[in-house]
C-alpha cells in the first residue's frame, strides 16, 4: 500500500524540471501577450474612432444637402482601409442614408437597417469595433455615422500567441525531459549504483567490493563515506576472522599440550596394571618408584597448563590480582634455579648466575616465581643447550632480572608480538601453549614494571625485567 505511493526520484525530477521550465517562460509570455493584445485593442479602438470622426466630418455637407451620391463617394473612400467591414450614414430618423460594405452586396447585410438616433461612442464586441459618430455641421446634427471595424487582426494575433504558447509548452516539456535525464544521470544513477553495491555485498558477503566511478560532488562524498564504512567493516571482519583463526590454532595446540602428559600418564598406569602383583620383586619396586615419579611430574605439568589457561581467562576478565609481600628476589631466583637443576644436568647445559646477595622489594612471590620460571624454561627450551646467563641486581628504586640465552633467537618481526596472547615466535613443534610470555608481561605490568626483549636470530635472546621495589614508584626507565 505504501509502495504504491512511492514516487521515484526520476519522476519527481521530471515534474520539477517541467514546472521549472514552463512556469517562468509561460508567465513571461502571458504577460507580454496580455500587454500586446491590450495595446492592439486600444489602438484599433482609437484608430476606428478617428476614422469615424474623419468620415463624419467629410459626410456632413453631403447629408446637409441630402446628396446621396457625394455621401456614397465619401464612404467608398474606406476601401483603402482593409479593416473596415462596413460603414453607414443614417439620418436623424435612424434610416440608412448611404452604406458601404467591403464585401459588396445589395442588401448591406452587415449594417443595421435602422439605428436609434442620437447615439455616440465606440463599442467592442466579439466580432468588431462599432463606432457611432454624430454627423454635425455648423452646430446642426444631420444624422449618425456607424463604422464596423474588423477584429480579424486582433484575433490572428491571439492565435499566433496561442500557437507560440503551445510550442513553448512542448519545448519546455522536451527541455524538462532532457534536464530530468541529465539530473537523473547525476543524482539517481549514482544512488542506484550505491544501492546495487550494497545489495551485492548483502548477497555475497564480500566486503572488498567498492562503489566506483563516482565524482567529487555530494554523491561522491556519500560514496566515499560508504566506501570508508566498507573498509572499516572489511577490516573488522578480517580482524575477527584472524582472531577466530588464532583461537582455533590455540585450541588445537592446547588439546595437543594437554594430551601429551595424559599419554605419558596413561602408559605408566597401564604398565602398572599389567604387572602381576604377586610377582613384584625388588627390581619392580625400583621401577614402581620411577613410574610414580613420572606420574607425579606429569600431574605437575598438567596442573601448570591448566593454571596458565586459568590465568589467561583471569587476565582477559581483568581479574589478575597482585598480593604483595616483602620478598627477596635473589632468594626466589635461587629457589627457581634449584628446581631446574636436574633438567640442566640432563641437557648438559650450563647456567651462569650472577645474583646479588639480597634484593628485597614489595612483590607477589608466586607471581614473580611464575615470571622467573617462564623466562628460564624458555631459555632452556630455545637455548640449544648453550650456556644461559642469569643476572639479578638492583638500584635503590628498582630491581632487575636478566635472562640471556644463545639459542635460536627471535626475528625483529616476531619480537613485536611475543608478549601477545596465544602468540609465539617458534614453530609449533616446540610445544607449549604460547601463553608464558603473555602471562609474564601481564604480571610484570601489574607490578608497575617493564619487560623487554633484545634478540638476533641464531645468536640468542635477552629478556630484561625491571620491577619497582615499592609500589607506586616507577620501575621503568626508558
Amino acid at each position, binding site marked *: 500500500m505504501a509502495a504504491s505511493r512511492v514516487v521515484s526520484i526520476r519522476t519527481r525530477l521530471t515534474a520539477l524540471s517541467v514546472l521549472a521550465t514552463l512556469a517562468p517562460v509561460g508567465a513571461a509570455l502571458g504577460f507580454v501577450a496580455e500587454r500586446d493584445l491590450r495595446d492592439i485593442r486600444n489602438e484599433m479602438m482609437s484608430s476606428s474612432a478617428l476614422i469615424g470622426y474623419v468620415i463624419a466630418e467629410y459626410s456632413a455637407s453631403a447629408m446637409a444637402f441630402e446628396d446621396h451620391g457625394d455621401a456614397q463617394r465619401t464612404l467608398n473612400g474606406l476601401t483603402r482601409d482593409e479593416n473596415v467591414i462596413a460603414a453607414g450614414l443614417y439620418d436623424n430618423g435612424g434610416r440608412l442614408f448611404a452604406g458601404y460594405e467591403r464585401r459588396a452586396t445589395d442588401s448591406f447585410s452587415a449594417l443595421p437597417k435602422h439605428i436609434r438616433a442620437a447615439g455616440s461612442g465606440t463599442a467592442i464586441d466579439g466580432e468588431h469595433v462599432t463606432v457611432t459618430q454624430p454627423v454635425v455641421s455648423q452646430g446642426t446634427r444631420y444624422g449618425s455615422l456607424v463604422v464596423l471595424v474588423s477584429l480579424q487582426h486582433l484575433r490572428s494575433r491571439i492565435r499566433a500567441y496561442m500557437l507560440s504558447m503551445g510550442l513553448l509548452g512542448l519545448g519546455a516539456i522536451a527541455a524538462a525531459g532532457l534536464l530530468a535525464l541529465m539530473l537523473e544521470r547525476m543524482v539517481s544513477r549514482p544512488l542506484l549504483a550505491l544501492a546495487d553495491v550494497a545489495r551485492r555485498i548483502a548477497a555475497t558477503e564480500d566486503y572488498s567490493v567498492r562503489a566506483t566511478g563516482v565524482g567529487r560532488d555530494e554523491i561522491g562524498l556519500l560514496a566515499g563515506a560508504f566506501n570508508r564504512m566498507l573498509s572499516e567493516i572489511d577490516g573488522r571482519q578480517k580482524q575477527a576472522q584472524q582472531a577466530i583463526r588464532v583461537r582455533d590454532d590455540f585450541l*588445537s*595446540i592446547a*588439546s*595437543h599440550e594437554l*594430551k*601429551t*602428559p*595424559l*599419554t*605419558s*600418564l*596413561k*602408559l*605408566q598406569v*597401564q*604398565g602398572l596394571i*599389567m604387572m602381576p602383583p604377586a610377582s613384584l620383586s625388588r627390581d619392580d619396586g625400583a*621401577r614402581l618408584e*620411577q613410574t610414580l615419579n*613420572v606420574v607425579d*611430574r*606429569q600431574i605437575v605439568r598438567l596442573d601448570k597448563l591448566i593454571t596458565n589457561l586459568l590465568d589467561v581467562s583471569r587476565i582477559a576478565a581483568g581479574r589478575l590480582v597482585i598480593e604483595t609481600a616483602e620478598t627477596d628476589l635473589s632468594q626466589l631466583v635461587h629457589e627457581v634455579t634449584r628446581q631446574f637443576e636436574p633438567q640442566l644436568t*640432563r641437557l648438559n647445559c650450563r647456567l651462569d648466575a650472577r645474583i646479588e646477595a639480597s634484593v628485597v622489594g614489595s612483590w607477589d612471590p608466586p607471581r614473580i616465581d611464575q615470571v622467573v620460571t617462564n623466562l628460564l624454561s624458555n631459555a632452556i627450551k630455545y637455548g640449544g643447550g648453550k650456556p644461559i646467563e642469569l643476572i639479578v641486581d638492583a638500584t635503590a628504586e628498582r630491581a632487575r632480572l636478566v635472562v640471556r640465552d644463545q639459542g635460536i633467537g627471535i626475528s625483529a618481526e616476531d619480537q613485536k608480538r611475543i608478549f601477545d596472547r596465544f602468540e609465539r615466535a*617458534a*614453530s*609449533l*613443534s*616446540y*610445544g607449549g601453549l604460547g601463553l608464558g610470555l603473555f602471562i609474564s608481561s601481564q604480571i610484570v605490568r601489574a607490578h608497575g614494571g617493564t619487560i623487554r626483549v633484545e634478540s638476533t636470530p641464531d645468536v640468542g635472546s635477552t629478556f630484561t625485567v625491571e620491577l619497582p621495589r615499592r609500589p607506586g614508584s616507577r620501575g621503568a626507565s626508558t
Partner: protein
Amino acid sequence: VSGQPWILVVDDDEDIRDTIRSLLQLRGYSVDIAADGAAGLERMRAGAAPALVILDFMMPRMNGEEFRAAQLADPALSAVPVILLTGAGDTASALGTPVERIAKPIDLQLLFDTVARFCTPRDR
C-alpha cells in the same frame, strides 16, 4: 642392540619416549630412542636398520612428516615399517605406507599388539 632386531622410538617428550622404551624392554624388545626426526635418522644410519620405528608427529628440528619423507628417500631405510603417534589436530598426510597410526593418549595394549605384528621379542 647390534645384530638383534630392534625398535627405534622417536619422540621429543622425554617421559613418553622413556616410558615406551621401558615398557617395550619389559616385553623383551631391544629399544633405542631419539629426541627428534633428525636424531632418529642419524641413529638409523649408524648401524643395522631397525625392525620398526615408533614415531611422534609434532617435534622440533624435524617432525614426523619430514622424517618420513627423508626415510622414504633413502633406499636402505624406506622399507622399515612405522607406527605414527598422532595427537588431536595433527594432519598426518602424505606419509606413505606402511604406516600404522595410534592416537594419543596411547592405549598400551594396542601399542603392544601393533608392535607384535612387525617385530618379535628376543625371548619371552
